[in-house]
């Protein structure tokens, strides 16, 4: 979204700006987590918040993820809107009981009396040279937990908009922040931030006619690159950025696949039991007679996330995506 006054900003800055604006707009928004205060977060997303709003609004907690989520549940019970940071994907696991058994279910358990307007920020994914436990793609766990919304932006503007929407939501939203896009820059005007769209709509990032790449988060730029490269092979690829994994925008995705007749789901999370299975299955259920080939998946391998020096072999890249496109049973050529 380029406007006249647009200046380049990083995705990390856009997240931070969204937190700031949400805190300024609503005194019930509280940020808490490890190192979010004085340090401004290990990715500097919360930089400046403690200074502007004080320790009580942006709080360095003791080092305990279940405690962070659990106390946030209590704060939400009292009407606050906590935004918690899990420092890295794998360090959210100690909090899974609170997340699954309380955050996700509280509204339902209490027949709506106790909503959980809670935002859980999870820096996720690899490609940053992190040592073990710092690069997990944990979206499958969140997707399999009814009661949670799960979103993940791929652009600087979406980072802002989704974070605002997540905080504004009366339901718990897991915001998966693609670590390797934190420093991606885009012309984006923080003085006139994009309108905050409600959660749940996918978007066609690149129209095309030959096949659809269905993707999200850190894999969106890779797919855009693949679509560019595919032109040389004579394929005009459409790229759909899901943006929201829960709820899922069946309409946009199915419309695209019905148009193109072929689809590849791309994500860096492990393939087996990963998001791609769900996506491929529901696209097939809805578009079966429009499909020229089975919906294929390009995903991370079904292995523990590899060490930094080997991660490039694990992550879906342009070549692997094009290989999959080539397997989409093109009658004529390639």
């Amino acid at each position, binding site marked *: 979204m380029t406007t006249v006054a647009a200046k380049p900003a990083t995705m990390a800055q856009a997240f931070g700006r969204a937190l700031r604006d949400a805190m300024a707009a609503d005194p019930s928004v*509280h940020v808490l987590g490890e190192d979010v205060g004085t340090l401004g977060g290990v990715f500097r997303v919360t930089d400046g918040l403690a200074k502007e709003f004080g320790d*009580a609004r942006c709080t360095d*907690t*003791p080092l*305990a993820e*279940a*405690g962070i*989520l*659990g*106390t*946030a*549940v*209590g*704060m*939400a*019970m*009292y*009407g*606050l809107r*906590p935004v918690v940071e899990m420092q890295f994907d794998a360090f959210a696991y*100690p909090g899974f*009981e*609170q997340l699954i*058994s*309380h955050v996700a*279910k*509280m*509204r*339902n*358990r*209490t*027949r*709506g*009396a*106790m*909503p959980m307007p809670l935002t859980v920020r999870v820096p996720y994914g690899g490609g940053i040279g992190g040592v073990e436990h710092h690069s997990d793609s944990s979206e499958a766990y969140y997707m399999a937990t*009814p*009661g949670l*919304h799960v979103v993940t932006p791929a652009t600087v503007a979406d980072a802002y908009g989704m974070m605002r929407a997540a905080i504004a*939501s*009366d*339901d718990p939203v897991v915001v998966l922040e693609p670590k390797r896009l934190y420093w991606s820059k885009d012309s984006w005007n923080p003085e006139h931030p994009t309108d905050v769209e409600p959660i*749940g709509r996918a978007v066609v990032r690149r129209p095309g006619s030959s096949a659809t790449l269905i993707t999200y988060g850190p894999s969106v730029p890779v797919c855009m690159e693949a679509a560019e490269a595919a032109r040389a092979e004579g394929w005009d690829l459409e790229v759909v950025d899901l943006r929201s994994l*829960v*709820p*899922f925008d*069946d*309409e946009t995705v199915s419309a695209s696949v019905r148009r193109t007749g072929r689809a590849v789901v791309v994500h860096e999370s492990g393939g087996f039991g990963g998001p791609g299975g769900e996506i491929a299955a529901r696209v097939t259920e809805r578009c079966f007679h429009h499909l020229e080939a089975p919906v294929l998946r390009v995903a991370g391998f079904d292995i523990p996330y590899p060490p930094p020096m080997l991660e490039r072999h694990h992550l879906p890249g342009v070549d692997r995506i094009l290989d999959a496109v080539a397997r989409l049973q093109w009658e004529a050529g390639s």
Partner: protein
Amino acid sequence: MTVMEQRDAYRPTPPPAWQPRTDPAPLLPDAEPFRVLGTDAAAKADARLLHQLYAEVVRGRRYNAQATALTKQGRLAVYPSSTGQEACEVAAALVLEERDWLFPSYRDTLAAVARGLDPVQALTLLRGDWHTGYDPREHRVAPLCTPLATQLPHAVGLAHAARLKGDDVVALAMVGDGGTSEGDFHEALNFAAVWQAPVVFLVQNNGFAISVPLAKQTAAPSLAHKAVGYGMPGRLVDGNDAAAVHEVLAEAVRHAREGGGPTLVEAITYRMEAHTNADDATRYRVDAEVDAWRDHDPILLLERELTERGLLDEEGIRAVRDDAEKMAADLRERMNQDPVLDPMDLFRDVYAEQTTQLREQAAQLRAELDAEADGADR
């Protein structure tokens, strides 16, 4: 390496960061559990309070008996009885102000009822027509919590939030001896102490976690001794002595209200019945152990105290019992009515707004139910 050059600067001192932060002594519990009934301290106890505790404990016992009976009649899916622990349940409820919050575990329906909750609503979870059967905000009673110790950080967060808003609210959170072994117990107490949140943690040490006795649960001198590791006071109390539990909790609530931060209270009590109606306690404990506690029954302790001091006579006892019977009869009658069920409720309140996916699924169930009804009509 500039160490050699620095050598002259060296003075043998303790590490710079070290200042003993607090004196641990006042945080440690007394060696013996605090008692009131049958001791000299009883003379100072308020007669009205004693009588109120008595009436509520008798009601509580009757409530437990009635709920257990309802499981036998198939009216409850399951009931974890607090028989023998009524003093703790009742004291926890009575010690709080209206504006305060109670965080009960799955065993503490009685505390919720003593706080004013409709017993039928309190039993919804255990009857099985819904999960939490009441609006927690109405009586400020959090949902009965089954995943052990997970309610403790909720209490801390709520109390902390209230304090940040400048509201005079204390949270009292209940947990069992077994629950103290969970990581959530640790994290909750630590957050509470660091934040100086107005929370009181009440551990009902009833000797068992299902079949596991305390000795397999902890090697600590007492559970109250855990407090010092968080920098909060630990208190030990006779959990069958309603007056003592009330006094210790009242003190802790006052302390929290005045900004003094959290307290950990261990109440020593005993679960007189099996873990739930589905449990067979003979597998792991002998009758003699249970019998030893009959002499120390919470009703007995109160009745003795009140009668000896001439505050209660046979007539008074009868009145209290009659009241309890009335409550039980009412409960029985209302629980004998089948709850009204709507299967479409499955899709309510999963989210503030139904997702497309849930709308589709709701439509599917609706169609199935209609087809079923059609079939039944024909």
